[in-house]
């Protein structure tokens, strides 16, 4: 170690110096050489493409790697003067608090108060101190009034705030957040960021934040550290310098950028003279309103015809519900719903939690029983048709792909659907190989489905839903709990399938997904359809979004009310390419 770098280490409260981590039994390191420091009170956003080792780094900051998860650690990680490879996790817990992605996997006890007290009790603190810390932590996240409740009664956002309180109760000066909002709906994300913003503002904690939702994170970040695909530090500096100054490099690296920044980069390409890249919706709005549209731009409107909508006067109906009501456990989940899914469209079903979105999707795809005569799937009544016949008309993809795997190899998994249709053997062989090739799984045909990577599992689950030739694909929250890169990979696949003619229906909370991909959007609230229209017009109806607890996508929020009429109606990045805005 050089004299200079040891001086740096003393400056930082956390010092990560050329750290490489290789998991036991693996040849290639998960993290190849990360170097950065974090000062007391500083909020650092850790970015990197999928597989760059961000979560590995997070686990090593409090010693879980190598103490609980076996791995070889090279280089040095020093937190508050302690070498994390030589200090037990329990001792490091007083220096480093952790908040993980899945709120359910962080609960141990039966009441909020017991949960927050769990850490201090483990530290053998006196009862009065345990209670004082628990009260302080619960008050800081706004949950003190609910201290006697079971954590299960909290919303996802509430449970994640509880996890933050648990970390606060340890009074550790460093807090590490690993994708804290990936499992939350929009309201939950706002709750968690309200708490995070307060923590960052008081400045009594150093914060390391791993997050794909940059639109929410950017406001409270002081500094950005970017890892490259191998896990080496690629950039390290103040948020402005890194995100504005190296935006093109970061995009090439596969790092997600704030949607306002991406939008401005597209506008630049289209000839707009935006000098300073914006990071927030407000900055984007100011930036575009300060300049004139490029000279070539005629007074044009954006997306004159709704993209992807079939031009034919009466498009063919793939699935239809008429007067559909569904009752579960004596509770009416859907009331008298009428909905037609048209062939070839990309339809999004959105709405608040518990509105009946998933039930509607399951009813449309024959997954749950429905009253006779209320649903027609490709002309079939699912109450009279066999499951085999229904599966030729519609494929359903569950949230967790593992749940729907039934065979012992990838090949058998795909062949299963065809054998069920009693197709001849040579046709099965041919069709399975087609699907393997289509979804990039040829090299994995003999592997057990559970041994695939996450992205491969997802592709296989889509393949199994389509192998029997179903023209309609229904997906329940397909991007929930996934990192951005994997979500993007799936969405690109859905876009391709849709372009090839497959009808896609998704239930989702991700409004930017809706804006970018869906032709038509259905809003469900309290078991009823409250809106059913082209996506752009649903997203433009602010009163409707507010009433149903939905949030406009960031791009819409930035550009609505812009003085440039050709931008004011834009909701998706694709609309900002040359030839659309500049027409």
């Amino acid at each position, binding site marked *: 170690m050089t004299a200079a770098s040891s001086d740096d280490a003393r400056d930082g409260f956390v010092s990560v110096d050329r750290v490489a981590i290789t998991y036991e039994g693996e040849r290639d390191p998960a993290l190849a050489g990360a170097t950065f420091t974090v000062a007391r009170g500083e909020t650092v956003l850790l970015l990197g493409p999928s597989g760059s080792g961000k979560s590995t780094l997070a686990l090593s900051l409090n010693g879980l790697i190598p103490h609980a998860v076996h791995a070889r650690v090279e280089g040095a990680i020093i937190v508050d003067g302690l070498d994390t490879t030589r200090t037990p996790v*329990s001792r490091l817990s007083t220096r480093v608090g952790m908040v993980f992605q899945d709120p359910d996997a962080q609960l141990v006890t039966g009441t909020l108060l017991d949960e927050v007290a769990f850490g201090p009790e483990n530290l053998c603190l*006196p009862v009065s101190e345990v209670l004082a810390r628990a009260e302080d932590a619960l008050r800081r996240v706004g949950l003190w009034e609910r201290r006697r409740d079971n954590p299960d*009664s909290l919303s996802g956002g509430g449970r994640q705030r509880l996890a933050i309180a648990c970390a606060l109760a340890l009074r550790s000066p460093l807090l590490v957040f690993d994708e804290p909002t990936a499992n939350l709906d929009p309201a939950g994300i706002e709750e968690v960021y309200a708490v995070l913003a307060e923590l960052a503002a008081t400045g009594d904690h150093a914060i390391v934040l791993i997050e794909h939702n940059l639109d929410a994170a950017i406001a409270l970040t002081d500094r950005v550290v970017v890892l490259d695909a191998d896990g080496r530090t690629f950039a390290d500096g103040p948020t402005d310098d890194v995100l504005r100054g190296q935006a093109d490099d970061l995009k090439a690296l596969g790092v997600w950028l704030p949607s306002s920044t991406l939008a401005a980069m597209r506008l630049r390409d289209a000839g707009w003279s935006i000098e300073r890249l914006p990071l927030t919706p407000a900055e984007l709005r100011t930036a575009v309103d300060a300049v004139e549209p490029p000279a070539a731009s005629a007074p044009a409107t954006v997306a004159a015809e709704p993209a992807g909508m079939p031009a034919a006067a009466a498009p063919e109906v793939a699935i239809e519900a008429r007067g559909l009501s569904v009752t579960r456990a004596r509770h009416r989940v859907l009331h008298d719903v009428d909905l037609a899914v048209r062939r070839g469209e990309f339809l999004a079903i959105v709405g608040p939690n518990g509105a009946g979105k998933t039930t509607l999707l399951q009813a449309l795809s024959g997954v749950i029983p429905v009253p006779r005569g209320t649903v027609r799937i490709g002309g079939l009544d699912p109450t009279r048709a066999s499951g085999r016949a229904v599966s030729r008309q519609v494929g359903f993809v569950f949230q967790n792909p593992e749940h729907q795997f039934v065979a012992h190899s990838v090949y058998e998994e795909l062949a299963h659907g065809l054998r069920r249709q009693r197709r001849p053997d040579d046709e099965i062989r041919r069709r399975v190989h087609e699907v393997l090739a289509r979804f990039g799984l040829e090299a994995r045909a003999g592997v057990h489905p559970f041994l695939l990577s996450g992205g491969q599992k997802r592709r296989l689950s889509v393949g199994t839903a389509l192998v029997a030739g179903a023209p309609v694909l229904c997906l329940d929250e397909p991007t929930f709990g996934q990192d951005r890169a994997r979500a993007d990979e799936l969405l690109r696949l859905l876009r391709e399938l849709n372009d090839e003619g497959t009808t896609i229906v998704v239930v989702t909370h991700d409004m930017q997904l809706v804006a970018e991909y869906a032709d038509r959007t259905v809003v469900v609230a309290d078991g009823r359809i409250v809106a059913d229209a082209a996506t752009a017009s649903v997203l433009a109806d602010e009163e409707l979004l507010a009433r149903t607890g939905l949030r406009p996508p960031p791009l819409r929020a930035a550009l609505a009310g812009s003085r440039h009429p050709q931008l004011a109606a834009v909701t998706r990045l694709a609309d900002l390419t040359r030839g659309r805005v500049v027409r």
Partner: protein
Amino acid sequence: MTGPITNPYAAQRSGPFLYGLNPLAKLAAPLPAMLLLVFVRDIPTALVFLAVAYAALIVGARMTWRLALVLFVAMPAAIALVAAGLAAWTDPVHVDRSVELLTIGSWTLYAGAVEVGLATGVRLGAIIALAMVAGVTTNGVDLVRSSVQHLRVPYRIGYTALAAFRFVPRFGHELDVIRQAHRVRGAHAGRGPFAAVSRWWGYIVPLLAGAIRHAERVALAMDSRAFGAYPQRTERHTVPLRRRDAVFVALFWIATAAILIIVPRL
């Protein structure tokens, strides 16, 4: 998903007298009676123990509609069912054939067979009712706390068990989703025991994969919060062993001995 969520962990230390006792005392008191009932053959002894357990529950536990349903409908029905079943199936060679109750064709139901069936039914009912004395008035958290405090059970084991208890509803939900997904895929369709076995086998792999991943995550979260840092941890709630616990256990044991000695001689 919706609907009120009752808290299985919430401590209930007020209410009728059983709630005020230490969980270990409530387990220890009926234990000799439960073990001895395995060997006792006569109906009166088993009936008296059943009555004692019912008395303890009626006086000492909060009478919810659910408990009432178990005590006054489910339990008598179960005892009658076991008695009738055993009476019909018991080999007549081994029973007292002096009284014939019913004859259908060549088959005869003897009073002795009914007596054997009833004895078994009442014994099983008594054992279950005695177990309910602790079961319906104790929560898992207090039992773990008490075992750690008084039985020197290592807290690392006790609290890990409690965390595992949280998994149960989660797995129930996950199993529902897996069954739904497999049905949609048309996996292992068919009737009969072989189809059922292969169906359940198909659920186990995804369920276990999910369970192991979840357990690993919970373990990391617990480690991050200093679990296992010291040989002891602070206990905010002590679950004391008091004089009343000793009195309860002693009285129960004395009553047990008295019943065993006196009732068969009456």
